[in-house]
């Protein structure tokens, strides 16, 4: 949605909703850090969390510098122009047809790209070097996310007359990230002990915390996508409430039927999957349809996760199963359940089977582009600096190896180095007492 003519009037209420929604979506990235961070082993907890947090920095800056322009500045059907580099011309004026300043729109969208890039990390935790990761998501946000966002929301070929329905990013965010995640997982290869050792979540409460905060933030993600405090926002909020509820119920029933036990990790996953599935549909379908979509996403993801864990595909935190499958179910079912009376264009139930086809085209195009571009990007980055961590780093854990930190530290046996002691790079030879012990033991 290019927003050129500054003749709109600011609506204080719409602006308030969008401001709070922006803050809510910013919170989703730390929330994701906890969802992901709790699922890995403690020796990789900080690295995993930082894979999300760092996106708030680099991807955020890249969006302001370049991404926003490529996505939303006037361009062609495939990509936006360069007129808004560095947010040039994006200020406090309200564009014609809008009720919020264009700057607010730009930062709201910026929160989306940050979480999308961070989502990818779930597939490649516990084994990627941090510099290359950083470079990858930054470039990916510019070269993959921005064009795809342009296609759907920025005046590109998937939006407009073609009319793929994607209320808040089922395709742009979730399928896009999941396609990249699968390719990255394959490109990096599985963790060295994958399939041999049990790799268990080190802190399930953190997983629940992440899921709870993600749900909370997602109200801004879906609700804010209405861009105004209107009926559409109300519907999106309501559906963001009922779909994960239904997804959680569906998952718990499945687990009960199959194992007789409801798990916490499963419950947290179900919430996220329900949120993902309803994302493309939030402002277009009835609450009952949203519940159906949430439950359907839940069931589909459940079985895909079971299947995936038996393969050699180390999509470690199941980005594909949660975001890919969840997004797929949502993106297709919005084509089925969208109803004009609820604010969407007509879907299959309204007698428009074409919409399902349109949805499929959107999905395939996004997933295809994202997969290919991700592969090329990783290959290029790997040519400059290896993307995969060394075996030894993987063994001791990436927190110590790549960040020189431990998530939980008791301080025992830690020798304080004063300026005199410390010569970076020759650590072994300098500490007067214990380190020399090390040198000669």
């Amino acid at each position, binding site marked *: 949605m290019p927003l050129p003519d500054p003749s709109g009037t600011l609506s204080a209420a719409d602006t308030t909703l969008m401001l709070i929604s922006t803050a809510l979506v910013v919170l989703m990235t730390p929330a994701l850090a906890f969802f992901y961070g709790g699922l890995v082993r403690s020796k990789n907890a900080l690295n995993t969390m930082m894979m999300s947090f760092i996106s708030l920095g680099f991807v955020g800056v890249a969006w302001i510098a370049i991404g926003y322009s490529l996505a939303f500045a006037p361009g062609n059907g495939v990509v936006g122009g360069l007129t808004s580099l560095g947010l040039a011309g994006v200020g406090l004026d309200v564009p014609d047809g809008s009720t919020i300043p264009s700057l607010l729109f730009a930062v709201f969208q910026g929160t989306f790209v940050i979480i999308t890039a961070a989502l990818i990390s779930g597939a490649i935790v516990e084994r990627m070097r941090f510099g290359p990761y950083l470079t990858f998501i930054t470039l990916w946000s510019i070269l993959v996310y921005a064009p795809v966002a342009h296609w759907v929301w920025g005046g590109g070929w998937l939006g407009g007359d073609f009319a793929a329905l994607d209320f808040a990013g089922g395709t742009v965010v979730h399928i896009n990230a999941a396609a990249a995640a699968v390719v990255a997982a394959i490109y990096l290869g599985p963790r060295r*002990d994958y399939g*041999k*050792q049990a790799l268990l979540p080190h802190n399930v409460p953190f997983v629940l915390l992440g899921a709870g905060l993600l749900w909370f933030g997602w109200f801004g993600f879906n609700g804010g996508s209405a861009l105004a405090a209107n009926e559409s926002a109300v519907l999106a909020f309501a559906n963001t409430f009922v779909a994960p509820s239904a997804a959680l119920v569906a998952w718990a029933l499945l687990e009960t039927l199959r194992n007789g036990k409801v798990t916490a990790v499963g419950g947290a996953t179900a919430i996220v999957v329900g949120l993902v599935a309803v994302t493309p549909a939030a402002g277009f379908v009835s609450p009952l349809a949203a519940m159906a979509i949430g439950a359907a996403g839940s069931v589909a993801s459940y079985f895909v996760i079971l299947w995936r864990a038996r393969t050699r595909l180390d999509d470690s935190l199941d980005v594909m199963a949660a975001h890919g499958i969840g997004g797929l179910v949502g993106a297709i079912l919005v084509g089925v359940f969208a109803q004009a009376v609820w604010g969407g264009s007509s879907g299959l139930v309204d007698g428009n089977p074409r919409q399902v086809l349109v949805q499929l085209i959107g999905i395939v195009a996004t997933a295809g582009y994202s997969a290919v571009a991700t592969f090329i990007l990783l290959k290029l980055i790997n040519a400059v600096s290896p993307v995969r961590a060394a075996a030894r780093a993987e*063994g*001791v854990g990436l927190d*110590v190896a790549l960040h*020189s*930190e*431990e998530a939980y*530290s008791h301080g*025992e*046996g*830690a*020798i*304080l*180095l004063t300026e005199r*002691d*410390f010569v*970076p790079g020759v*650590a*072994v030879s300098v*500490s007067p007492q*214990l*380190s020399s*012990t*090390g040198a*000669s*033991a």
Partner: protein
Amino acid sequence: MKLIVAIIRPDKLSDVLRALYQSEVRGLTVTRVNGHGGETEHVETYRGTTVQMGFSEKVRLEIGVSDEFVDIAVGAILASARTGEVGDGKIFVVPVEKVYRIRTGEEDRAAVTPLVPSDLFGN
């Protein structure tokens, strides 16, 4: 009766357990410990503070065995815990005067002799 105390790498634990199992050694107790030896130490940084970590994570196994099992158990551990890099750990064989099984009060050999499977399924 002997108590075998072995310090090994955490990521070798599964292999060692398997080797012990295959040697028919049953029953053991493990503790998470920190070891200091010839391993390369690493430096950690927390804002302005730089510290040198003199310890590596290890796992300590404690296995009570009757005398004829000592060499078998030691051999199994030596074979399965080795990577060849500094830090593989040590094994200590300590004499024991008496062993009791708390559940039954059985002593010595009987205390560390495995249950026969049927005993277990009876529970």
